[in-house]
């Protein structure tokens, strides 16, 4: 019996030592894993954005874009996120929606600008989408819903428009797993606090969406892609209460009013 125990320890030790030795190698660099992942995401992102932008109208008005850009820049700079890596797009659409596409495309609908009551609510949504991008949720969702094989086919130039349409649909109008949504919510709160923006406004926005206003229900795509809004609003409030923050305005009130007015006019 002693011999068996000794030999068992021997095999376990051999496995552990082999694992330790293998771990000394930098496999990620050797196989260029990071570069491959990033190049795949880049290709998928560009393909999807090309397809999406061809079928939607992008707003290029400075009165609308610059204030959003200021909020985005403030969040990024306060959280050591490379602002230049995020590509901001404003789409002329009445739906209350915002979403992230691979390769750091952040898409906001003009309907969202109309729906939010203040810049802190808008910042919360932007922070939430940045969190999805930064935490690699977008590619994970795509791989899960569409499949790795289809994505590789897509990047090799063999993807058809049906696949692209399916991918866009998945990313724009279906929810992430609840755990990913919660992760993005909490990350967004962290981003907002570091940027001196009130995170409870984001909770208020979610709570309002969770109210399911029957008149506007069909317009609120962000509700369908971000379920359990009320519960999540409560969790955000609880999480925020544990943090110390000083809320400051990013935009002056005149700029905010112009943004709202211009968004309503679209």
């Amino acid at each position, binding site marked *: 019996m002693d011999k068996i125990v000794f030999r*068992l320890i021997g095999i376990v030790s051999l496995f552990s030592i*082999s694992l330790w030795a293998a*771990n000394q*190698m930098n496999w990620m660099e050797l196989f260029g894993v990071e570069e491959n992942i990033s190049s795949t995401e880049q290709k998928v992102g560009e393909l999807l954005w090309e397809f999406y932008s061809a079928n939607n109208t992008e707003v290029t008005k400075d009165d609308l874009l610059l204030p959003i850009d200021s909020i985005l820049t403030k969040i990024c700079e306060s959280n050591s996120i490379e602002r230049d890596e995020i590509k901001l797009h404003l789409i002329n659409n009445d739906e209350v929606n915002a979403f992230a596409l691979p390769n750091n495309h952040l898409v906001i609908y003009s309907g969202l600008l109309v729906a939010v009551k203040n810049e802190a609510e808008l910042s919360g949504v932007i922070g939430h989408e940045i969190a999805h991008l930064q935490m690699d949720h977008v590619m994970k969702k795509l791989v899960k819903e569409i499949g790795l094989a289809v994505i590789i086919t897509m990047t090799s130039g063999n993807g058809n428009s049906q696949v692209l349409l399916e991918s866009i649909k998945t990313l724009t109008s279906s929810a992430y797993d609840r755990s990913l949504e919660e992760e993005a919510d909490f990350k967004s709160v962290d981003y907002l606090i570091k940027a001196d923006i009130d995170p409870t406004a984001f909770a208020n926005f979610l709570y309002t969406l969770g109210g399911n206003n029957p008149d506007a229900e069909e317009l609120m795509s962000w509700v369908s892609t971000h379920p359990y809004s009320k519960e999540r609003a409560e969790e955000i409030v609880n999480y925020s209460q544990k943090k110390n923050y000083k809320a400051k305005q990013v935009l002056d009130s005149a700029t905010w009013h112009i943004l709202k007015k211009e968004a309503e006019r679209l």
Partner: protein
Amino acid sequence: MISTPKFAYKPNEHEAEKASYSYLMSLIAVIVGLPIPIINLFATFFFYLANRNGTYYVRWHATQALLSQLSLVFINSYGFWWTVSIIFGDESVSNHYISYLFVVIIFNFTEFIATIYSSIQTRKGKHIHWWLYGDVTDIICKPGNGQNSI
């Protein structure tokens, strides 16, 4: 790691062929079952069940073949579910993951070669005794049970 001690008796042609099959089963199952790690365990387990009342030589080798698959199932299953969680879950490819896969492949390959060798040698009627698994098989498998050639 592998020794060829003298067996309690000289197995006949039919026994040597059957004992050889117990190793062959896991090889075929590896080809069929990849990448599902449990298939080769099932294959050797069913072969073991079918031969648990066989002669001592056949039983002994069916048991050793089964035990040798058992430990691989644990490390392969861990690697399999790790891969699944990378593809469908929140995990991402890391240096630890690739290191683990590398070691798993080395261990599987070693086991694969040892299994081929054991299958050939048992077919010749030689008694192949694996390090650790052979010792455990000696405890589990006694000459008194089942049909005995002696």
